[in-house]
């Protein structure tokens, strides 16, 4: 095999006839179209500078201000782009083909920014934990580097340290998540994956209470996540080997056999289905890991339980949005030509995910683990919409993600409120009688649970109906039946929590509902409002999702 018959980023690039190295052209970057991501990442960098140069006592307020402004400005930029037609008529590919600026990308970026903003409020909450040595503290460790239970930890607590680094970490994660569903080549996809995963690993380890559990969760998440990343990278390499390109559009052309000019190297590999199928399977696997689909769900319960609850809420909602966005783009843009191969597999994954998520959740006794398994079941429901392989499928998934992420953020925000002497009281037995002691908080949580269960007039029902309808129209009627049956199973454990809150007698030494600052109150209120509005009057948002339901290629 001659050297020219091998794919290579360098050999492809440096192949002018005279043998000289051509001038590398300067890339054109559409800064305006990339502004949402750049604002957020820029603010994250600014946050690091704040961390380095601003005095300790002013950092919290400075960081909160920078983050909130950045997320709001990012959202404004997304809206401006959408209004300017970039979601529909002027949708296109930016940054030399690395990033797609189209309807799904902008819709999901908007959702991620809003969810990030709401999550930011829960990150910044400082009234729930009792003050330590006269200093207000948040849910994060005083000093992440100090060993749990050691003298240096005590000293850090006494000195009133707080880990304000969480704010730039949050911004980096948000930035990565925004690129993830917009990535238009496999390398950008991978980089975005790492950019949002690494901050999340760190955030998981930063709990103020139950630190060992939190660190264990982080290690587990990191190890499994690293495996998944490695698989993804390997899959990317195989796909590159197959198509001679990492660009989505180019791979899709090769898969469909519509590529114009076949180079000798391509001619040698494009018939090799092993490369294609294995590569596609490995990349898809990495994404299924991130959405928490069975059988790649093992990390979910431990990580959800161990991570600080605000982080769990953020991770459970925003990661899912980003990862499903990337999965949609991969399946609809890169691999539509492979539909007959991936649909049966995804059918199976969706069905198993729904059933296992719902059934295993029944046996859970910890509210955070319960919500973790419920998130697995929901991943299954969303997958049912993903495999519809129709435009309705895309828009239904977009809508579901928007609905689901706000319910999740709100629900975890409520979990942060229920406390006893040991911090958050997440064991279900401690939630008994909460409805009698704090009717309002319990009622709001009941609304979130009913939305998870998909009861009509909540956003969960509208979303579930949308994906099931898309699935049924796409010919997946059996999957819809599996879906409704597992919804019935899932309803059981959501209802069980409601029973516990409202019909059980409160225990004398039970937890109390902490009085939150306006930050958490706003977060919960936004979650509840979105849940009800999307349930009663979903039309505007369905329209938005359906207008945004076309990928560029």
């Amino acid at each position, binding site marked *: 095999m001659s050297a020219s018959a091998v794919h290579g980023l360098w050999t492809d690039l440096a192949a002018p006839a005279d043998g000289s190295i051509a001038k590398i052209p300067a890339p054109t970057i559409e800064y305006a179209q990339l502004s949402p991501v750049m604002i957020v990442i820029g603010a994250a960098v600014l946050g690091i500078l704040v961390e380095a140069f601003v005095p300790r006592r002013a950092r919290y307020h400075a960081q909160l201000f920078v983050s909130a402004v950045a997320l709001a400005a990012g959202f404004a930029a997304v809206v401006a782009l959408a209004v300017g037609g970039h979601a529909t008529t002027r949708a296109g590919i930016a940054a030399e083909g690395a990033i797609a600026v189209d309807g799904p990308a902008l819709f999901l970026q908007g959702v991620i920014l809003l969810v990030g903003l709401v999550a930011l409020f829960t990150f910044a909450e400082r009234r729930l934990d009792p003050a330590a040595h006269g200093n207000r503290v948040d849910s994060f460790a005083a000093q992440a580097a100090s060993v749990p239970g050691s003298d240096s930890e005590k000293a850090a607590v006494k000195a009133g340290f707080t880990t304000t680094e969480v704010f730039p970490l949050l911004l980096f994660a948000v930035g990565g998540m925004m690129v993830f569903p917009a990535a238009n080549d496999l390398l950008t996809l991978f980089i975005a994956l790492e950019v949002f995963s690494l901050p999340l690993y760190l955030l998981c380890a930063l709990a103020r209470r139950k630190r060992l559990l939190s660190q264990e969760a982080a290690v587990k998440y990191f190890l499994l996540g690293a495996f998944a990343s490695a698989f993804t990278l390997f899959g990317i390499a195989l796909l590159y080997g197959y198509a001679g390109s990492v660009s989505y559009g180019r791979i899709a052309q090769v898969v469909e056999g519509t590529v114009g000019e076949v180079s000798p190297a391509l001619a040698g590999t494009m018939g090799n289905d092993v490369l294609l199928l294995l590569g596609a399977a490995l990349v898809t696997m990495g994404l299924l890991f991130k959405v928490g689909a069975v059988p790649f769900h093992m990390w979910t319960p431990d990580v959800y339980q161990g991570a600080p609850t605000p982080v769990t809420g953020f991770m459970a909602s925003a990661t899912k949005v980003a990862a499903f966005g990337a999965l949609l783009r991969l399946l609809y843009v890169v691999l539509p030509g492979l539909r007959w191969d991936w649909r049966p597999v995804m059918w199976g994954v969706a069905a198993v995910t729904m059933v296992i998520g719902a059934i295993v959740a029944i046996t859970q006794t910890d509210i955070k683990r319960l919500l973790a398994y419920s998130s697995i079941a929901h991943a299954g429901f969303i997958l049912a919409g993903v495999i519809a392989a129709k435009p309705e499928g895309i828009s239904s998934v977009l809508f579901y993600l928007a609905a689901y992420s706000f319910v999740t953020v709100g629900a975890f925000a409520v979990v942060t409120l229920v406390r006893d002497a040991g911090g958050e009281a997440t064991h279900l037995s401690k939630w008994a009688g909460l409805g009698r002691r704090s009717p309002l908080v319990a009622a709001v949580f009941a609304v979130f649970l*009913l939305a998870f269960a998909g009861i*009509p007039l909540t956003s969960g029902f509208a979303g579930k*109906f949308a994906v099931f309808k898309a699935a049924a129209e796409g010919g997946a*009627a059996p999957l819809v039946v599996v879906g409704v049956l597992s919804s*019935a199973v899932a*309803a*059981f454990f959501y*209802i069980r929590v409601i029973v516990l809150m409202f019909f059980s007698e409160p225990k004398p030494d039970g937890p109390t509902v902490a009085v939150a600052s306006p930050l958490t109150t706003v977060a919960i209120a936004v979650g509840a409002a979105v849940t009800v509005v999307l349930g009663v009057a979903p039309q505007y948002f369905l329209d938005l999702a359906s207008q945004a339901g076309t990928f560029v290629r």
Partner: protein
Amino acid sequence: MSFPLLTATAVLPALGAVATAAVPAARREAAKWLALLVSLGTLVLAVLVAVRFDPGGARFQLTESYDWIPAFGVRYELGVDGIGVALVLLTAVLIPFIVLAGWHDADPLETQSKRWRPTQGFFALILMVEAMVILSFEATDVFLFYIFFEAMLIPMYFLIGGFGDRAHQGGEEAAATQRSYAAVKFLLYNLAGGLIMLAAVIGLYVAAGSFSLPDILAARADGELTMGTNTERLLFLGFFLAFAVKAPLWPLHTWLPNAMGEATAPVAVLITAVVDKVGTFAMLRFCLGLFPEASKWATPVVLVLALISIVYGALLAVGQRDIKRLVAYASISHFGFIILGVFVMTSQGQSGATLYMVNHGISTAALMLVAGFLISRRGSRLIADYGGVQKVAPVLAGTFLIGGLATLSLPGLAPFVSEFLVLVGAFARYPVVGIIATFGIVLAALYTLVLYQRTMTGPVRPEVAKLPDLRVRELAVAAPLIALLIFLGVYPQPLTDLVNPAVRHTMSDVQQHDPEPEVEAAK
């Protein structure tokens, strides 16, 4: 645009519910009066609906139609036929009595926290259920119907689980456990049925391209819409299962005795007399209307299940030791009659079934509410704890007897008319079915009279010797219901005139004609 009367019948109780819930903790008497006033206002609106409705006119009247979620093809579409009017009226009539009968059922206990406002919650939930039930009788959009069909489970669930019967043998602890068991069982059965229906609702949209019942009926009549045999049968099963859980039909009935036993008497009436009627109503309107071929296909099985319900429910009622569970099993037997009437596919049967829904609602309300008054006096639900009450409290015993006699379909009382019609309808097409169903009446006489005999007659037991007779509030509940039973028993004409044209439409949906009488055929 005319005044949206149908919307108003639902919006008034819904707003009333919100207002009732908002009454401050200290003013709970005001919450009760507010709820009563709202329910009476709703009754006035329902009567207006009945007056405005022209039985000889179009099939669906007083229609309202607005886009709601165009992306799903869902419209806010209301309209009533005669059957709908009858059931809206039934609901609106019964709710004030339920409110009045439950006047003290949700008063807070001394031990409970001051911020816990059970009274406001209780009446608000009742009004919420009323709004949703009325909307589900009025919705002509299948999706809209489904939403209220499912959503009403939530307030019902809180009514059962949150406000139990205080007359419980096992003490407060056991009462709480059994109550939450009953509530969860109720919810899971109905939710599972409802979710299967959701799959069928989606399937219907895929098959028919619309959720609007009038549109689908028209398309079917024009031959524009045809469904594959298997598709239609599967969709029918999805719908029927949900309604059979709600109705409830044997063997999906087991949640009802628990729910009715543990709930307070007014809530038990709300379940069986009002909410469950949505199930039988929906069979008549949606199963038969949307899936005529599949309905005919399923008829033999449904009839057998209905017969089993009739006989099995009655037999178990005979064996009950608990007054409220007895009424629950009697209701299962009666629901068997209703479903029988719907599926014998004769106009007498279906008119009878509709009348049966109304009459069973009134008679069960009379029997159960008076039984509730009795139980609250003695603090026990067990039949064995009573005896000789008629000597101590003759008015109570008398109203109880009339309620019981209505339950066993004594001629002259309203249920007789409907039961007779159902049986005539059954005999006309399936004589054997009619014969077996008649046994249900015999058993009904047995359980009702034995109940009366054991509780009301005989020597006065010492524990009941001091029981007071009915108070004014309780008389205000019992007397009008009994008057209604007698009136509709003697003069059912207005009701049959209302219902018959609607039944004719349903019969033509399923393309069935009444069988000719044998004698004429012989000529």
